[in-house]
């Protein structure tokens, strides 16, 4: 390597990204914003995995394979989320979480 990088940079980056995502997921009231925030959290995980893979097990691709699986599953999840949003907005013109109050939150 010899690039002067060390794992703590990556851990710091991913921790910051994860915290931003978590904040967004908890504070945003728009369903799509919350979905984006969750994606941000998953990106943080992927950065972690790929960085650890590079520094810890450079000849086994465990972390990278894991990251690929996370990307696919995240896409499936978002697809499902958007489908649900379409279904909800057809019934009721909203994509704001505060309006979803038939059941107590």
């Amino acid at each position, binding site marked *: 390597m010899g690039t002067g990088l060390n*794992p703590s940079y990556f*851990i710091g980056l*991913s921790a910051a990204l*994860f915290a931003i*995502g*978590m904040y967004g*997921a908890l504070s945003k009231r728009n*369903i799509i914003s*919350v*979905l984006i925030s*969750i994606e941000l*959290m*998953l990106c*943080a*995980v992927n950065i*972690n*995995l790929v960085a*650890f893979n590079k520094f*810890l*097990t450079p000849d086994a691709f*465990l*972390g990278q*394979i*894991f990251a690929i*699986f*996370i990307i696919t*599953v995240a896409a*499936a*999840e978002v697809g*499902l*989320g958007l489908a*649900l*949003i379409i*279904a*909800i907005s057809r*019934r*009721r013109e909203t994509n704001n979480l505060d309006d*979803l109050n*038939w*059941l*107590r*939150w």
Partner: protein
Amino acid sequence: MNIDFSLITTEIALAILGLAIFTLGLIIPRSARKGLGNIALLGLIIVLGIAVYSWPNQGETLGGMYIVDHFSSFFKIVGLVAAILVVFGFRRYVAANVGNYLEYYSTIVFATLGMIVMISAGDFITLYLGLELMTISFIVLVAFRSFDVKSLEAGIKYLLLAGMSSAVLLYGLSLVYGATGTILFAEVAQSIIDGSGGLLLIIGLVMLIAGLGFKVSAAPFHMWSPDVYEGAPTSVTAFLATGSKAASFAILIRVFVGSLTGIQEHWVMLVAVLAALSMLIGNLIAIPQTNIKRMLAYSSVAQAGYIMVGIVAASQSGVKGVMFYSFIYVFATMGAFTVVAAVYNKIKSDEIADYAGLAQRAPLAATVLLVCMLSMAGIPLLAGFVGKFYLFMAIVDGYMWLVLLGLIMSMVSVYYYLRVVLVMFRDDPVDPTPLKMETSVTITLLIALGVTVFLGIYPGPLSEIANTAAQSFFTP
């Protein structure tokens, strides 16, 4: 990397079943799709037969990524039994309130497949894939009544909270990978014994507890369960409360007792606090509920608290307690929810007040609800008592405060269960016409009743099996 196919026959059979239902449903005309329920039922029974038959098979395949031992076989059978009861006992409910047989039955089968894969996981990737297959299938199922805004709302809430919880879980997994340099449970355990650890591992551990705590709906990660349980179709609620929960407990044990034993001192107290909180919050908030599905949701939070006690013990008797309790919990919960669905089919209401005089209108349903609730409360001579006895005996030295809390909270739970019972048996019905139950519902109720009573009186054989299976964690 060679795959030992003899170890994964159950999974292959289940995957083929799911795809077969899906393909068949696309080929046959829409009006004929109703028969898919019978095919799903038959297929699941065959798969259960395969799972029971392959009980002696043990080993690891895919380079340790997939573990088949008695412990995982036990939970697979529990999951399959739950799936069979869901398909069988709720047929009329599904026909009247859900529809879309093709999507419904294939999704149920895929959710079961997710559970089974997760139970057998030997590394983080398999764990995550199984978990997500189960969760995504359940999101679809929860939001299934797409004409009902309540169901859609429950679906979107489950999606967002489950997405968040799995992100937290994944971050924890990635930190554990960073701390130990491996994703196999067995190697993680070895690496911890060899002295790897530090802050990274501890933070990862806490996030794992949070992520998995969500799946078993342990307080304070239970906020989703009342809403989702109430909004989802009752058949899905029943499956979510039994199969999903049992599978999540299996993986919780696999990760904590099987893999992170080396740093027990860091997590035992945390899990004990979660267990105590779940018992407290679940039982206390269940008291004022007026909707029976919501009440059962809070009661299932409390049940999660009891089961977690067995993980606190982190011993063979504790694991055995968890296995035994999960088994009987499936039958008791399934019995209760079958009654709820069957009654909803007739009177279109889930309010406890509308259960007035149920004992006169449908004696069997009322009796089964009574027995299942008393079993959950832990009244002697019923299976729940034996299960709680095993769980709490495992921690009696060391965590006396937890045992006392468990006992007090069980008494509290008797209060709100008996409230329902009083409404059913004492109050006079508004409309005294008897409710006629379908044969499939009656059979399911009799099975739930029979198992709950039988295991209460004669728990020996099942407890012996659970004990043998629990050994797989503690033989070096």
